[in-house]
């Protein structure tokens, strides 16, 4: 069985990476781990009450759950499980510790496109995967490009 790490932003478009994992490993049973980045809260109270599973479940939409279920159904022979992991570190060293714990074989990341995170608490783990996982495959991903949040700037009011 192979363990493959895939970055996710809990969108249906990001699940295309799972299909590429199946395409690239036709003979293997795959344990897919979808990795999302989440910043730890600033306050003590929030840190004590921080629950990874709860944060992940909050991001699930009906469309995403349906798409994931369809994937499992279509590739039952290839996909053993699809699980989610949260990376809460801030640098590559933390990510290396995170990887040791996961013991993954390879990673599949989107090429020339970053995942769009709805909230500033969440971040894309693609760059960490590219830097720290030995076997990384970059694949093209179709889908709507996330519109980044526009920061308000007073200067921009007069920047014509």
């Amino acid at each position, binding site marked *: 069985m192979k363990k493959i790490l895939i970055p996710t932003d809990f969108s249906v478009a990001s699940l*295309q990476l799972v*299909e*590429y994992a*199946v*395409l*690239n490993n*036709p003979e293997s049973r795959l344990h897919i781990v979808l990795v999302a980045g989440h910043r730890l809260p600033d306050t003590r109270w929030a840190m004590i009450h921080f629950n990874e599973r709860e944060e992940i479940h909050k991001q699930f939409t009906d469309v995403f759950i*349906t798409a994931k*279920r*369809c994937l499992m*159904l*279509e*590739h*039952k*022979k290839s996909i053993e499980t699809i699980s989610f992991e949260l990376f809460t570190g801030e640098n590559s060293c933390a990510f290396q510790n995170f990887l040791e714990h996961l013991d993954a074989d390879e990673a599949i990341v989107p*090429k020339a496109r970053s995942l769009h995170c709805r909230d500033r608490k969440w971040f894309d783990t693609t760059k960490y995967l590219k830097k720290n996982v030995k076997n990384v495959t970059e*694949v*093209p991903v*179709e889908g709507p490009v996330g519109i*980044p949040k*526009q920061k308000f700037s007073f200067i*921009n009011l007069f*920047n*014509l």
Partner: protein
Amino acid sequence: MQLRTKITSVFIVLTSLFLTGVFMLIYYVSREYTENEFYLRLSQRATIAAEAYLEADQMNADIYDDIRIKHLQTLPKEKEIIYPVDAKPKRPLTALDSTLPKRFFQQIFTEEYAELKKGDYYYTGLLYHDSESDFIVVLSATDLYGFAKLDVLRNTLIIAFFVSIVFIFILGNYYAKQALSPISRIINEVNSIRAENLSLRLGTVNGKDELAELSHTFNNMLDRLQLSFDLQSNFINNASHELRNPLTAILGQTEVALDRERSAGEYHSILKKIEAEASRLDFLVNGLLKLAKTDFDSKGFVINAIRIDELVLDLKRNIDVAIPDNKITLDFEGLPKNEDAITLLGSDSLLRVALSNVLENACKFSENNRVEIKIVSDSGNILISISDEGVGIPEDELKNIFEPFFRASNVREIDGFGFGLPLAYRIIKMHSGEIRVISQKDRGTLVKIRLPNKKKYLSTIH
């Protein structure tokens, strides 16, 4: 009306309304304060007047008079009147001033204090209790200084209002012009783009505002248009080339046949070659016709209920005859027990064409290596996946694979015309379905087709 004028006008109207409201509030508050302050002064003077005149002590009267004259400025047109009254039955003992309203005196009796404004005059009245009897003291005056101050304030506010409006007009007009100038630039640039110079693009606007987004959207549209133009011209080139090849071969063979007398065997061989080329031409023309038909006739096909598993099995049987070396495997493990879940409404002939094109591609481009077809059903959809371990499609060419006559760069040696997948795409779209291709060069291709089942299709149209 120009957008610039509209923006400036709306801006001025809104600001005028706001300024009017604010200035009126300032004037109103100032007037209220001035009046209250004057009433207070009047009431203080009324109290002092009562103390001065109604206390029996002459020395007190002189002291009070002295205080009033030296320290409390006499108010303009000040007048004080003292009326003896009987407080308990609330009855005056002399005639009251008839020019003042009766409610004024009634209020003095009940509340022991009253205020009144009549014209330019302010009146205060208080009920004074002496040791021997009761009196009503009424003091009146006009607030000339207060009125003058309010006049100055009013005039200042009016002038400030009009000056503000002029400034807002000038600044608003300038800012609106600056904000909308990129649109004028975009209009000029778009006007300069023609079919001959479709590669021109709008200058990239810095920033992430709506105008930058408009520029990006235009440029994306121009990219798609240019691609479509290029593919159409390629289509015409490729179609002409493809049609020309068999025609050239046929003409060549007939020229050879007519060149000199030949044996029956030679004529037979030439005719066989002409037949093969004519069949190829026929196949090509049929494909073009089907492509054209799906473009313009998407509503004209006959709808039947089709069991997808039976269709696929039938196709497999046909392919076994056409391509005996095929290694197609069918995976129907995920098929639901409910027959309706895998029955769809559509054209049997068209769906056969679509699925057989995809299957033949899978066999052709994987050199008859393993091809797997899997059918599952979920949430009202029938999901068909066809995977192969063939040459795959280069990732920069993936976006063009549904364009007619497009052929990937890594399959030029393999026979084909490039309309199988575009045809399949259109047929599936006609059936309200989706087709997606996931592919990696030298790894293989996964084609995913999603079609609504009968129940979902009927609920969609109703």
